[in-house]
């Protein structure tokens, strides 16, 4: 009897710690918004909100993939390069092979999936450590992207290539008295819609599907999962394919926004993705992590960048601050887990 009450009290403090952690990330997000609203009048506006959301999409999409991979106990360092390769392939498909834009982008996204699939093979079949496997892919994908473009930007893609990245839903434009168009509501950019839909879908997958359950089980204890009949290789491979696919999608979105494909796009994005997952409470040991946490993490990074920019803080100082934020949140996480 005594041990139940004991466990009860452990659980309570456990739950409290969980809440503190969740609020630590979410609370710091609110604090950031409040501070930046005070220091810059242009910060708390619909326009800037949409700008931030748009900037956050790439981090969030990559972060969602990274979260799934990290929950299994892996890591994906290749997404920055893979997004460049995917975007470049999509652009070349349009310019050189004359493929219609939607199909070209599908080819681009599938290029990302292929890279993820190879990562999965390297990790599950060749038993390479995920760090090494995806480090290799990071170099290879970047190299291929530079090779096939001759290290030059791919431009002249036509207006339709820019729709995915620049278009928006519910955009309200009125023609003013002076005859110039007047944007009364900037609309919700397509990338933001994509981000929200994918975040909800992956979150459902993790929380409500058998596959999601297996992803957590593999990360919590892969031996136990295997001995319980979970197809560990397939589950792990899936997370890399998902991460690669989302990298491919991110690549298409980014290149579409610029209407130019840059083989040098996305350098170091993998670190933003991992950082957003980690700030959101994902454990690099595996078994722990949520999409909502990662979304908060992505917004923390995005809002920090945006707000600091608006306050004229240099890019170098921004790096220092974001570095400190990562260290701080993970330290809080460690405190929470130390018992």
């Amino acid at each position: 009897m005594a041990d139940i009450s004991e466990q009860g009290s452990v659980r309570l403090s456990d739950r409290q710690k969980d809440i503190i952690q969740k609020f630590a990330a979410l609370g710091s997000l609110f604090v950031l918004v409040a501070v930046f609203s005070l220091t810059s009048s242009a910060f708390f506006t619909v326009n800037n909100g949409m700008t931030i959301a748009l900037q956050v999409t790439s981090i969030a999409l990559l972060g969602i993939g990274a979260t799934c991979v990290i929950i299994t106990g892996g890591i994906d360092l290749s997404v920055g390069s893979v997004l460049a390769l995917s975007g470049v392939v999509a652009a070349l498909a349009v310019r050189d092979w004359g493929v219609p834009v939607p199909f070209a982008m599908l080819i681009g996204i599938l290029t990302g999936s292929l890279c993820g699939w190879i990562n999965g093979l390297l990790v599950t079949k060749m038993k390479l450590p995920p760090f090494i496997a995806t480090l290799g892919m990071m170099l290879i994908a970047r190299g291929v992207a530079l090779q096939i473009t001759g290290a030059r930007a791919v431009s002249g893609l036509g207006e339709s290539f820019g729709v995915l990245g620049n278009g928006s839903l519910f955009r309200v434009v009125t023609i003013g008295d002076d005859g110039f168009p007047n944007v009364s509501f900037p609309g919700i950019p397509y990338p933001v819609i994509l981000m929200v839909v994918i975040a909800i879908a992956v979150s459902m997958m993790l929380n409500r599907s058998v596959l999601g359950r297996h992803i957590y089980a593999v990360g919590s204890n892969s031996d136990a999962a295997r001995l319980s009949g979970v197809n560990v290789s397939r589950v792990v491979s899936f997370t890399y394919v998902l991460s690669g696919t989302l990298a491919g999608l991110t690549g298409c979105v980014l290149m579409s926004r610029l209407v130019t494909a840059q083989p040098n796009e996305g350098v170091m994005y993998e670190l933003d993705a991992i950082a957003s997952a980690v700030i959101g409470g994902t454990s690099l040991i595996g078994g722990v992590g949520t999409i909502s946490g990662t979304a908060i993490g992505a917004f923390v990074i995005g809002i920090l960048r945006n707000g600091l920019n608006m306050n004229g803080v240099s890019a170098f100082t921004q790096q220092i601050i974001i570095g400190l934020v990562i260290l701080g949140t993970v330290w809080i996480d460690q405190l929470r887990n130390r018992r």
Partner: protein
Amino acid sequence: MQHKADIRHARAASPERRALLRLDGITKEFPGVMALSDVHFDLFPGEVHAVCGENGAGKSTLMKIISGVYQPTSGSIVYKGQESRFASPLESEAAGIAIIHQELNLVPHLSVAENIYLAREPRRGFLVDRKKLRADAKRCLDRLGIDIDPETHVRNLSVAQSQMVEIAKALSLDAEVLIMDEPTSSLTEQETNLLFQVIRDLKASGVGIIYISHRLDEMEEIVDRVTVLRDGRYIATDNFHDTTVNEIVAKMVGRSLEEKFPERLSEPSEEIIFSAGGLTRRGVFSDVGFSLRRGEILGFSGLMGAGRTEVARAIFGADPLDAGTITMHGETLTISSPRDAIAAGIAYLSEDRKAQGLAIKMPVDANVTLANMDEVSNGFGMIDFAKHNKVANDYVELLDIRTPSIKQPVRLLSGGNQQKIIIGKWLFRKPKVMFFDEPTRGIDVGAKFAIYKIMDELAAEGIGVVLISSELPEILGMTDRVAVFHGGRITGVLETRNTDQEEIMRYASGYGPKAH
């Protein structure tokens, strides 16, 4: 109590010798568990003092208190005449108390010499003085009469050799108290003899040795006194030669076998539901065959490393098989992964709960349903949470799992409850054959009894039950027949009611049937 204990000690040791180490009234409480209560123990120089008790009796807790891993809740530790408290293993080691764990703690990629002097390397300026390191290590090994090149990497050594290196390391620390935890469990007879020779030499040089082992039969050769613990309580200390193995066992068990095990309800029939033949995994086990009858509990006995667990894991598809056939209900099975085995209706409760049985960070419900997610999800692979939670609640109730809720992470539950969760996971799979590998290791008495009852009920329902256990009383109390393993083979299948510990041990050590 204090007084009585003192009288016993006085009888056991001559009064003029002063105890090297003396523990009095040691109590250790963990949240909700009394691990040790009022335990006495003393050790004289040049003595081998065995500590005996069943799993969970408190032996390892006591050792952890002596070596400073745990702090006692109350009680006194007097070491070399001084009241001592060791705050960490480093402190006890510095004071001259060394422990040699069952799982050896050497760095495989370093040489023998580097291991012996790890973190205390002789230096010349900033550099390691390799010459001195080598010479010192050689001296250590020579003192033990061991012929190992100090330059050899530890990964190339046998288990016995590694153990010798650990002892050498302990001696290089000028250890006066040496704790040996199951030192012979993975040694051959020849290696054991060598170890005993080393232990005799250590005794002669005045080292006090605390010897923990399940192998009572071996103790005669080296042990001077024996202390028995049971359920965290001190039972007795005796001169080994004034007592018998049977007396020691009786003190360890404390009650008759009938009370420890439930009455068997299931009865073996003639119908064979599962059989295996010619099972071979090169270098691990060979030509293993057995059959399992409806209603029967079959025991797998034998020493560690004899092949019991390895055979079960191979049948379950966790390790590859090189040859052999597996038949269930007359149908030959092809198993190449745990998935295949589970689909065929085989369940395997692994011996290492935390490492292989549980998704430790996940809650109770997720662990119960893990092996059978198809049952609690729809055609699109989405979990049906109403069904899912009902299943979890049902098994929590059925198995009397003590948890505040089904959302409790399993790592916060006790060992017995964790084990019940794994059992629940397999019961939900509705297995046809279930292997229980050391199901009661490190579990409290009440939970043990419950697990035995479950096994019996499963057998009564017609599910094949195999009990793999190192504890002979458990084998004798629960099984109908017992297959004894030695060196990767089954050396005999005995009718449990016609056998005894002694006969099983004979088969387990490869001697075969008793000569009449």
